[in-house]
Structures are given as C-alpha cells and as structure tokens.
C-alpha cells in the first residue's frame, strides 16, 4: 500500500468516523426478576429470526421498514415471563409496559431502519416499534409512550 493509498484510507476512516459518531450502546441488557442479567449484543439479536414491519410512525416521514426481533420470540427465548417489563432508554427514561401488549400486538425490538443500523442520533441502537398502521389502537398516547427508542435494557418488573 503506497502513501497515497494510506492517505485515502485515513481519509475514509476519518470521514467514516465523522459520518457515524460513536455507537457505544449497541448492547441490550435483559434482567430477570431473579436477578439474572443477560447481555445481548447487536450480533446476538441479528442472529435470531428477524421480523420486519412496514409502517409509518409519528417520528418518521412516510412508511419505513423496521427490522428486529419480535418481543414474543425474545421473551420466549430468554424466558421472560413477567406480566410487566421496564424498558429503559440510554437517558434513563423508562416505561412500564405490559408484556401482553408487546407479545400480542406484534411489537418488535428494531435494530435496523431501512436496512441500516440506527445511530444514537437516529433513535438507535434499539427501538420498540408497533405496527402502527395496522390498527388505530396503536396510534394513541399509550402506544406512543410504549415506543421507547435508544433502548438499553428490558427488565422484568416483578
């Protein structure tokens, strides 16, 4: 590799760094009520069967393609059987969400928006998304409050 190529590589690296600022929160923490903590990386989640939702939302323009793991599968896989979970965001904002709502209403823990990972600035790394367009019930304050973005952890509440 010549110096010119090195310069280009450095430039690409610099531009890349500038274009996608640090993503330090690419880990999801699951805490069960017995105190067991499970840490899932982006890779772990991406290896699970994925679910895609094509829907609009009040935070995005037009229909978007959300890809992630359905909470049904996530909870089954990691034996989350509480009635309610606390979903927390990177800024420590948290919401108590009924597990039934997440399971039965088809919510997913999104990790890709339109095929790309989401930066913190884009509400990543993880975002709770419901199929808003499929039912007016999901277009209410309650479901918007459940739709936590910049998710860092999901904990059993009892």
């Amino acid at each position, binding site marked *: 590799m010549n110096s010119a190529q090195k310069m280009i590589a450095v430039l690409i690296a*610099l531009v890349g760094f500038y274009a996608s600022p640090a993503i330090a929160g690419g880990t999801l923490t699951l805490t069960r009520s017995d105190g067991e903590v499970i840490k899932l990386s982006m890779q772990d989640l991406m290896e699970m069967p994925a679910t895609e939702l094509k829907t609009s939302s009040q935070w995005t323009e037009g229909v978007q393609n959300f890809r992630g793991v359905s909470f049904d599968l996530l909870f089954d896989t990691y034996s989350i059987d509480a009635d309610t979970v606390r979903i927390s965001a990177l*800024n420590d904002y948290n919401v108590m969400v009924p597990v039934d709502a997440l399971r039965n209403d088809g919510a997913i823990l999104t990790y890709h928006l339109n095929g790309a990972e989401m930066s913190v600035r*884009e509400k990543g790394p993880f975002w709770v998304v419901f199929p808003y367009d499929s039912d007016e019930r999901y277009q209410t304050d309650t479901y918007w409050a459940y739709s936590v973005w910049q998710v860092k952890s999901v904990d059993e509440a009892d």
Partner: protein
Amino acid sequence: MFAALVLFVVLYGVLSTALVRQLDDERFIYRENFVWAVVQVQRQYLIVQRDIEAALGRVGLSDEVVENILLEYEIMVSRVLLLRQGDGFKVLFTVPEVSKTIEKLESRIEQIDATLATITQPEEKLSELYRLLEPLDEPLQQAVVRTTNFVSVYNANNISVVKTDIQTLSYLFFVGVIVMAVLGGFMIRQRQKIFAADIAAQKARQEQEVIEEAADYAKMHALGTLAGGVAHEINTPAQYIQNNLEFLSDSFNDLVGSIVRSAPDQPAYLQLEKDKIEFIRQEVPMAIDESIQGLNRIAEIVRGIRKFAHPATDALELISIAEEIDTAVTLTRNQVKHIADLEVTLQSEVTEVTGRRNHLSQALINLIVNASQAIMETGQRRGKIDLLVNDDEDNVYIRLRDNGAGVPEELRGRIFDYFFTTKERGVGTGQGLPICRKLIQDDFNGDLTLSDDYADGAEFVIRLPKPDHAAISNRQKEFSEGPNDLNDLLR
C-alpha cells in the same frame, strides 16, 4: 316552538362538535412536553459537562470513560435533533430565545463533530468538547425558562378558549332546557286542551242524551196531562154517536115493525103515522151526518195522538207548520176550551220548515198549556190565546200570546233554566220550557224566546229559519241525476 327546538339541537350539535374537534386539534394539545424536551437537552448538556469535568480531574483516562462521555454527547445531540425534526415542536420555534439557542446548538454540534473528527488524543478530545459546549450554558438556561413561560401562557390561552366554548355550551344547554321546558309545558297544555275537549264532547253527548230522554219524558208527561181532556174530547162525540145510533136503532125497529103485508104475494107497505114518517125522514139523515162528523172528530183526535206519540226520528225533514199546529190545538182543545178562546192566524206564505217531526207540536202544546194555566191563575172568566204565524226575509215566527198575568220581571231570566218552575209540586217539572227551547234550537236551528215588550200578558216567540230552498232543490237535482232511463221513467 318545534322549530326553536330543532334550531337549538342543531346549534348545540354544531358547537359541541366544533369544540371536540378543537380539543383534538394539534394546537390544543397540552404542551408540557415542550418543557420536557428542552429540559432533556439541558440535562444531557449538564451530564456531558459533569462527566468531562470528572474524567479530566481523574488520573488516567480509560477508553470506556471517553466512549461513555461521547455517548452522552450523542444522546444530547439526539435530543436536539428531536426538537428540530419533530413536527410537534414547530410551535416552540416561535419563541425567539428557544429558536436562537437551538440554532446555536446545531451549529455548535456541527463544529464539535468536525473538530472531534480531527482529534485522536482522548484528553484533548474531551477538553475541546468541554470548551465548545461551555458558552451554551446560559442560553440553554434561558431557553428552558422561556419555554416554561411560553408553555404556561400557551396552555392558559388554550384553556381560556376551551373555557369560553364550554361556557357557551353551558348557556346553550340552559337555553335548551328552558326551551324544552316551555315546549313541554306547551305540549302538556295542548294535551290538557285535547283532554278537556274530549271531556266536553263526552259531557255534551251525555247532556244531549239526557235532554233527549227528558224530551221523551216531557212528551209522555204532556200526553198524560192531556189524556183526560183528550178522553173527554173523544167521549163527547162518542156520546152523541151512541145517542144517534140508539135513535137510529129505534127508528129502524119502528120502521120494520110498521111493515104490513096482507098476503105473501102482495107488496108490503108501511103502516105509520105521517108525522112519524116525516120525523124519521128529517132526523135519520141528521143523526147519520152527526155520527159521521163525530167519528171524523174522533179519528182526527186519534190521528193527532198517534202523530204526537210517534217516536221522533233523527232525520231532518220538511215539517208542515200547519199540521204541527193542528196536532197541538187538537190535543190541547179540552185543556183550553173552558179557559180561553184559541185563535190561530196564519200570515206566512212559508208552510214548511226543516226540522224533526213532532218536536214543534211538542213545543206548541207546552206553550198552549202554559198559556191556559197562566190565564186560569188570573181568575178571569174567559181568556184569549192567539197563535200567530208570520215571517220576515229569513225566518218564520210562531207567536203565542196570552192575556194571562205575564212573566214577572224578576223571573224572566230564569224561566228557561232547567228545574226552575213556579208551578205547584206535581204540576210542573221545571223542564218544559228549557226542553222546548233546546228542541227548537237543536232540531230547527231556531230559538224560543220570551218577548220583552209584550204588555198584555206573555208572548213566546218560536223563530224558525226558512228552509234553504236552493239547497233542497240542489239535493233534489242531485237525486234526479241518475241514469237517463230512470229520469225518463220518472218524467
């Protein structure tokens, strides 16, 4: 009234719908989230500052600490971007301090991103981040304060608008309640009126039935009262008919006994004195004529009774005034003849009126009997009753005048009241005059009145409207307009 109610309902519906829509409107969402969003930016800003200060104050700087600080910075940036990109926050940018602060933040973020991209040394990176962020401390605080003020005023204004609308709705509701109460009262009153009308109609029907029964009773009462006189009227001719028949029988026996026949084959002859023969020749035809007259008289009286006693029909028909008067005079003759002279004078060309049979004669009988009783009470030797029939353009008048004592002034207003009578118990029922008046009013559309200005006794006037000849002829025309061949047959 109904239109007012409909108008109220429509107005209420439109206003309440408008209010609900207004509440759904984006502008009317309670804007506490504005404060939350701006405070979140300030919070993240302070966290970044605090963490940098802590990191730089420590000896040694791990990658994890730097990464965490940069993550906090990213979170702060995401909060700024959320404010800038969220449609719901557009209103917030009408507040100058907020707008300027966000613009400063954005430009400063661009500057920080560009600067950090060129720095590899962690400590320097954090120092630069701290330095570049520091001037934003005061503007962010101002933005939070101004946002809080703005949200407070914004919500207060919205609440005021909604409050005014709710007040309007309240007033409208009360107006509606009043309108409905008035309408309800009106409907109840209408129902009461209908109910009262039903009751009145029922009462009128019952009254009519009572009057009809009373009229029948009065008729029978009159017949009973007249029965003695009528019997006498019949008895008188019957008496002389009997005498005449006895005379004729005797004469016949005399004639048969005077027949003489010398031999069976010889002609027979009368062996009677000449005076006797002359007497029979003159008296027998007279007796026969007198008897026939007597029988005619009886037949006339019986016919009168039969007519009078005949049940009245509901049908209105043309009634002969003269026949009704005849019936009345015939049936009251014995009642009157010893008290007064009854003179009937017909001065009207109209001979018929429309009404119900017998009811006119019933009224006349009542008036004639009253007149004779009035005359009798005066004790005069011979009274006078005039029955005069005349007319004007519209009506026929039957005036019955007597030269009795007349009706005292104080009783004039009461003689047509039911159950009012001046007669002794058992003589009068107090229903005669009122029933007569009712019959004349109902059945003839006329009236029975007592003349105010008749001085020689009393004058009762029966007014009977002349029959509408035009209407009758029209009815007859309609009746005759049947099939042509039938008309031909009738011609």
